[in-house]
């Protein structure tokens, strides 16, 4: 019932859409999974902080009636990280929650993905994607079992 991007608006630029998909996988991953993915890449250029990893807030918004004017629904904790690789590539992460380690690894993966390591990054993220897709599908099957199938009783004399 759910798509991989979980309802996120796909960008029209396929390059950006692919980058968003990597970011979505990282938000759904655990820190241990991402750590393992990073290890799986072998030797990578060292990364330094472009800006210190920090916890903050994003004000989430809804729309009146679901499709009208925007209103402020409430905030969410968000952690952001920005890194620069030795070769000059930069990577960013903005994720719900307060996990600084996870955000920093995600930013490194984002930076690596933008260069020659793209295929390798996609490869090490595959098991995480598969895990998320599997859990999402199982949840959808459980929910689907609660769908009401109406039947109408025919009555009367004919």
């Amino acid at each position, binding site marked *: 019932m759910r798509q991989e991007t979980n309802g996120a608006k796909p960008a029209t630029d396929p390059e950006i859409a692919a980058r968003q998909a990597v970011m979505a996988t990282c938000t759904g991953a655990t820190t241990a999974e991402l750590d393992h993915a990073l290890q799986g890449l072998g030797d990578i250029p060292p990364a330094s902080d472009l800006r210190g990893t920090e916890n903050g807030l994003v004000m*989430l918004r809804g729309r009146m009636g*679901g499709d*009208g004017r925007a209103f402020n629904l*409430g905030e969410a*904790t968000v952690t952001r990280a920005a890194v620069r690789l030795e070769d000059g590539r930069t990577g*960013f992460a903005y994720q719900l929650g307060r996990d600084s380690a996870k955000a920093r690894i995600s930013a490194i993966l984002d930076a690596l993905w933008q260069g020659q390591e793209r295929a390798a990054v996609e490869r090490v993220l595959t098991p995480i994607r598969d895990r998320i897709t599997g859990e999402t599908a199982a949840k959808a099957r459980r929910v*689907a079992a609660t*769908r*009401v199938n109406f039947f109408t009783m025919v009555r009367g004399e004919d």
Partner: protein
Amino acid sequence: MYVAVKGGEEAIDNAHGLLAHERRGPVSVPDLSPDQIETQLALAVDRVMAEGSLYDPALAALAIKQSRGDLIEAIFLVRAFRTTLPRFGNGEPVDTGAMAIERRISATFKDLPGGQVLGPTFDYTHRLIDFMLAAGVAPPAPAEVETDFEATPRVTDLLDGQGLIEAELPDDTAEVGDLTRAPLDFPADRDLRLQALARGDEGFLLALGYSTQRGYGRTHPFVGEIRFGEVMAEFVPEELGFAVPLGPVSLTECQMVNQFHGSAELPPQFTRGYGLVFGQSERKAMAMSLVDRALRTREFGEDVTAPAQDEEFVLSHCDNVQATGFVEHLKLPHYVDFQAELGLVRKMRSEYAARQQELKEAAE
């Protein structure tokens, strides 16, 4: 008036030590982990996130542990925590039409695209205490059926297409009011009202919504739709210029369809009340949508005759942290005020006694 009172420091320290001791309870019982609260008391966590106005399940769970299950205290802790963090910016408005549905019901249409999906609900349970839970019996695996992705359009979109319900216009040029940044002024626009209701006390809004049903500002509501599930939160950072998926957030949305309004320019059509709440919180979303519609009196030229229609009354009193602050401030030392009142009542009593004496003497 308060007066500085010194000398309580040791008693306060010891009281907090005692609080920590009582919070832990007997050591023969295992300590409760925030993870257990987050996953097994999920609806309490949802309420703390909604009224704390901060989406962070792990933080809300910890706040519930710290507050010993006092949810308003936990909400207070969460509100205090948010003041310590910088705000990176505003997210993109969430698209509830693209929600990964976990529950979706309509009381207005039986058959509708996407179907009626009950999800994890207390509805139709018999409300009998289940002693098997105390025995720690594992539940059977839930049923599963194969499913294809199916779009689940909002019920209001179906009515909207035929002009039978008022249309919402997504005007993104209008500034979005934020009551955490500027004090609430009256009259307040609907964006500010919805923000206040989304973080408002569930019990207060439930009672107000109930009052509209009992005739105090009737709005003749039908549940067009209630849906619960996850949507992707998105944020456009300046340095990137495209929407970054932040992660999925659980939301409950209620579309209340209410009786008609028309004018010289518009034929009669249904009007709308809207509820959107963090987490799985159907009661709150329904109450919010009833009160949202009741508060739209100005727009529809209706008379304000009931409390639920009075925005100053509703918005000034729906925040349980504010309400707690003012009610509980009565606990603070009011020794000087009270001494003054004591002096006053003694003076009045002596005057009264003197008058009674005079009357008695006059009668004799």
